[in-house]
């Protein structure tokens, strides 16, 4: 109610009260206008022409001006305006080109007063003179503006814009004789009402039609215009050349603009298409509307401030057949919902953080950001150049936090990206290659993943038939990877025991598999298992050997351990069985980052990565013939999810590409797309264009694939005159020569042009290829020995 109080003072005792409310109209509205006393509003449209009185909490229909048995097109209004001097006087612009005035004082039911049928086309706008009672101005599609004296039957003067249809006309509020007109071709003209022969001034305001304009109620020189180009512009007309002083970019073409009373910089807009909201902008802050009314369900066609001196009540009509009164305090303020803090990571792990100045205590040890990331400074500050907005208190602070050079290094990323092989070879080779790459960069976990993938998806090719008969010793050594499994390190007794175990395990595989779900559950329960407890379990497991869920899960920790610290090889080689259960693989990944794994387990664990691979491969080979690789898909999926979650989207995407259809169906499109975009973004920020392109090309996501199809234009210069060839790639406009002739067939090359960088002769890719198969000299006969690789 404080606002109401303020309203009262503004109006000098004539308080406006009310709430946000609406009423249904029978038909879509095209325009609305208010009476001077702010108590009544007129709504006009193709099939509606009514006056409503604005009560405390509702609209009440007062008068229907659409009378007659068969309403004529004269009632089909494109615009309506209520005289601000005389409350009985209204004017409408009809779609058939007629300008009609209405006198509410008439005693008859039909209030139609005068009919001006001078325009040949639809009249887009009518406007009363702000102080002169009898003066009416109209602007029409036929390109003319006409000024009518209501005491006469015909127009007093006609203004020819000479430039297409008139979209809006507005009398200046302060200059008695001046009016502005906006045109479909983007022009705005200023006219003196006394001089119909020529406009005073003309300038191009918008690209495309200017739909509307509004003079500032206080500042005599300001004119706001809105156009189809989605811009609202404020022009200062005091200078000799109209100067654009503010510009607001909206999201849709601007249908109406209306300055907010009593608020110098506020302006309300609504749009012609697509966007149904009404925005109130502070023109000094053009990126975010200061208020927003979201009630309408279809485009808003008319907005008007209820009272000339009241900034809190806005009325609007819409195509959705409703009339609304909006109260400012009910407006949604996007600024409240906007995030006032900005946070962004740089490529090298630096973190920039921007926030309101008041939120950040001014710390004396901050230094101005100098942009040198090698400087190990942790807290820096730079003033945002937004001081000009002080009055809106939007000044903010930017802080940059740097990580130290070592930990922020992303070299591994670049190297990996460059060295990974993603396609073009059999899956097994790709995996091996990538594993090697990862290993070379000391990323053992990733290397392991690749190896496992190889085993899961291409083991058939590597498992010899010997493996299939479950002959342990032979089978395992037959695997290439087994070569690295150093049996000598294992005490023979234990070794044989393990074999035994495995064969037992093997015979029970079915059983174990069925248990795998329960394994999972148990595993979760066991999350809290302290490191110190583990060895006991291990022992137990080892001894009993033929056990069971518990047994198997306990071995995940060792694995996790081993991934994080590369451990010596001694002791405990007996874990092979655990991986018999495929779900163990899963846990292996899940556990890799489990925080409670403590260092003291190190003694109990002694598997080197190499060993664990081979163990896995053994066990896998054992029942390879029973499990399709599909079986592992959920595990692999979880692996990828895990990597992506860790921020290593590189691994996720690379695996995704390498596995292709094998795994694609498992992961939903959107996630994949997300990974791809992140990875491509990273690659591009590291300027690894070729690799990012390869990734795009190899991706199976439609949305990603088509990235390559956008902006594919290549600009070339003419080889003769060295000027850019604007039109076509093979003929120069300037020197009229075909720029790229094929040295073999002497025709113009329109598609792929390949040329020798030594002698700069070239031609069609195919031709050159064929030519150089048989000859080593340049086809142009220049004697150069060209090479084609």
């Amino acid at each position, binding site marked *: 109610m404080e606002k109401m109080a303020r309203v009262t003072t503004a109006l000098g005792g004539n308080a406006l009260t009310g709430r946000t409310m609406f009423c249904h109209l029978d038909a879509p509205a095209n325009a609305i206008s208010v009476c001077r006393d702010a108590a009544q509003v007129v709504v006009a449209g*193709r099939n509606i022409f009514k006056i409503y009185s604005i009560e405390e909490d509702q609209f009440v229909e007062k008068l229907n001006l659409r009378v007659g048995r*068969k309403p*004529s*097109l*004269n009632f*089909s209004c*494109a615009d309506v305006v209520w005289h601000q001097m005389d409350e009985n006087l209204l004017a409408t612009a*009809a*779609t*058939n*080109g007629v300008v009609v005035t209405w006198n509410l004082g008439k005693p008859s039911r039909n209030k139609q007063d005068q009919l001006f*049928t*001078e*325009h*040949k*086309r*639809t009249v887009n706008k009518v406007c009363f003179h702000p102080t002169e009672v009898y003066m009416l101005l109209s602007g029409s*599609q036929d390109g003319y503006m006409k000024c009518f004296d209501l005491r006469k039957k015909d127009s007093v003067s006609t203004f020819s814009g000479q430039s297409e249809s008139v979209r809006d006309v507005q009398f200046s509020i302060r200059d008695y004789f001046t009016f502005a007109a906006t045109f*479909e071709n983007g022009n705005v003209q200023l006219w003196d009402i006394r001089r119909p022969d020529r406009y005073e001034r003309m300038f191009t305001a918008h690209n*495309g*039609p200017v*739909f509307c304009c509004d003079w500032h109620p206080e500042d005599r020189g300001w004119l706001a215009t809105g156009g*189809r180009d989605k811009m609202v512009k404020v022009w200062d007309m005091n200078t000799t050349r109209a100067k654009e002083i503010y510009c607001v970019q909206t999201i*849709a*073409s601007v249908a109406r603009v209306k300055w907010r009373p009593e608020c110098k910089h506020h302006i309300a807009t609504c749009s*012609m*298409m*697509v966007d*149904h909201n009404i925005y109130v902008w502070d023109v000094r802050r053009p990126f975010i509307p200061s208020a927003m009314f979201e009630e309408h*369900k*279809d*485009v808003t066609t008319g907005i008007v401030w209820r009272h000339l001196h009241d900034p809190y009540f806005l009325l609007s009509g819409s195509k959705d057949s409703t009339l609304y009164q909006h109260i400012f305090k009910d407006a949604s303020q996007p600024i409240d919902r906007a995030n006032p803090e900005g946070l962004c990571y740089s490529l090298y792990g630096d973190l920039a953080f921007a926030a309101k100045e008041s939120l950040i205590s001014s710390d004396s040890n901050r230094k101005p950001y100098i942009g040198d990331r090698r400087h190990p400074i942790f807290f820096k500050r730079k003033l945002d150049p937004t001081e000009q907005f002080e009055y809106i208190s939007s000044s903010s602070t930017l802080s940059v936090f740097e990580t130290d050079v070592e930990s922020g290094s992303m070299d591994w990323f670049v190297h990996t990206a460059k060295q990974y092989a993603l396609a073009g070879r059999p899956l097994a080779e790709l995996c091996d290659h990538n594993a090697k790459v990862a290993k070379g960069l000391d990323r053992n976990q990733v290397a392991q993943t690749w190896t496992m993938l190889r085993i899961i998806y291409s083991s058939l090719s590597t498992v010899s038939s010997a493996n299939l008969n479950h002959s342990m010793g032979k089978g395992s050594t037959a695997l290439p990877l087994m070569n690295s499994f150093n049996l000598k390190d294992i005490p023979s007794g234990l070794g044989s025991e393990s074999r035994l175990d495995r064969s037992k395990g093997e015979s029970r595989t079915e059983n174990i598999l069925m248990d795998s779900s329960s394994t999972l559950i148990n595993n979760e329960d066991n999350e809290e298992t302290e490191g110190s407890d583990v060895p006991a379990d291990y022992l137990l497991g080892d001894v009993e050997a033929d056990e069971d869920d518990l047994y198997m899960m306990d071995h995940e920790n060792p694995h996790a351990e081993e991934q994080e610290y590369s451990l010596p090889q001694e002791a405990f080689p007996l874990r092979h069985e655990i991986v018999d259960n495929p779900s163990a693989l899963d846990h292996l990944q899940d556990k890799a980052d489990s925080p409670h794994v403590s260092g003291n387990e190190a003694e109990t664990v002694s598997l080197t990565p190499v060993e664990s691979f081979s163990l896995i491969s053994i066990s896998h080979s054992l029942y390879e013939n029973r499990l399709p690789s599909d079986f592992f898909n959920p595990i692999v999926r979880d692996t990828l999810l895990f990597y992506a979650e860790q921020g290593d989207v590189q691994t996720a995407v690379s695996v995704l590409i390498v596995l292709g259809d094998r795994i694609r169906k498992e992961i939903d499109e959107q996630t994949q797309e997300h990974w791809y975009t992140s990875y491509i973004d990273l690659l591009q920020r590291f300027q690894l264009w070729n690799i990012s392109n390869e990734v795009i090309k190899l991706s199976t996501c439609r949305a990603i694939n*088509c990235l390559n*199809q*956008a*902006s*594919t*234009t290549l600009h070339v210069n003419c080889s003769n005159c060295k000027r850019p060839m604007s*039109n*076509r790639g*093979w*003929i120069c*406009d300037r020197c009229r020569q075909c720029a790229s002739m094929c040295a073999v067939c002497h025709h113009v090359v*329109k598609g792929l042009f390949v040329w020798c960088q030594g002698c700069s002769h070239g031609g069609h890719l195919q031709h050159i290829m064929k030519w150089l198969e048989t000859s080593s000299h340049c086809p142009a006969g220049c004697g150069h020995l060209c090479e084609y690789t």
Partner: protein
Amino acid sequence: MRVSRPGPQHQELGIRIPRPLGHGPSRFIPEKETIQVGNEDAMMHTLFADSFATLGRLDNVTLVMVFHPQYLESFLKTQHYLLQMDGPLPLHYRHYIGIMAAARHQCSYLVNLHVNDFLHVGGDPKWLNGLENAPQKLQNLGELNKMLAHRPWLITKEHIEQLLKTEENSWSLAELIHAVVLLTHYHSLASFTFGCGISPEIDCEGGHTFRPPSVSNYCICDITNGYHGVDEIHASPTGSIPSTESVCEVEALMEKMKQLQECRDEEEASQEEMATRFEREKRESMFVCSSEDEESAPTRDVSRHFEDTSYGYKDFSRHGMHVPTFRAQDYSWEDHGYSLVNRLYPDVGQLLDEKFHIAYNLTYNTMAMHKDVDTSMLRRAIWNYIHCMFGIRYDDYDYGEINQLLDRSFKVYIKTVVCTPEKTTKRMYDSFWRQFEHSEKVHVNLLLVEARMQAELLYALRAITRYMT
């Protein structure tokens, strides 16, 4: 473009040398009256060069349109953008959609051209065996294509919804807009092709013959396109026999325009009268049927690209089917259509806007042999007549003017070209506006093309807008 005379050694080798069949780019316009390559002015030359560079050929459409270089420039730019430049649809889709659209009007000329292009950009030849061999996504577009071509007023937001609803073969809004623009472009271009009697390209079916030149150049495909060799003998070549009657025709038309200009203020028709006039024009337009309503069998090659041949232009209000009149003031290209297209398919709105603008405002201020004539009234009548056939009404237009300005044979021509272009014959082309230049008749065709395209677009875009709100 020219085919060299076959040397005797070729004949000995048994190589068959194709010979051009038609006489110039259009069957309706004598070759000597078209603009010859080599005689063009600088602007036309640039356009030729551009067109040749983009399409790899100087097609007959270009050769006829070059009567109006200003328009041609905009046309080529738009077409190039739609087919080659950045856009939501893959290249082969674009050509395939072009084929679908042209095939609706059995326009073998455009179909052949685009079959070549389609294969050239790597399209799957299997698709060409018929729509049912194309991906489901394109098949889904078939219904919209059909309606757009013949009864655009039936398109509702449900149709749009159907295409956009999320499933495997769904369209995105941007893709749909691209497709709609392509469809309308090719529907109307088919109108132009038939309206101007564009001859087949030499490398396309029907564009060449292997027979020695001495044999009659009578060809089966000319018949299917409604052109009889006999016509040429009987129909008087335009302008060669200036009958007094046809001279009067131009004068009378100008007189009427003048009258209308002057007396429009005096005699003010009532609103009911205006509404009736629109309805009457709308109704009459459906009785305007070509008298020579012979069934033209589409060539087998074309018919396989579309299904449901029986679906054609149906007039409004026939069979009691009432469709509410589309009010131009409530949904116009300038205010609404443009914004929507430009939003979803950037730059195309601008290109189309320019093209519509040029077509609507194009004038040389001449009428036949008369100079300095304001033809805006006549152009507006033609434009609004076409929109009237599609049920689009302008509140600020007196449809009585159409009756005054457009005589029956002209209306027959317009109606045929716009609604059932495949039925256009040389006789129709010759029988309207006998006194006028060929370039003026081509100008009329440009108006038809653009007005039709805009009408179709308006209906489609309105449905999309409704879907979006």
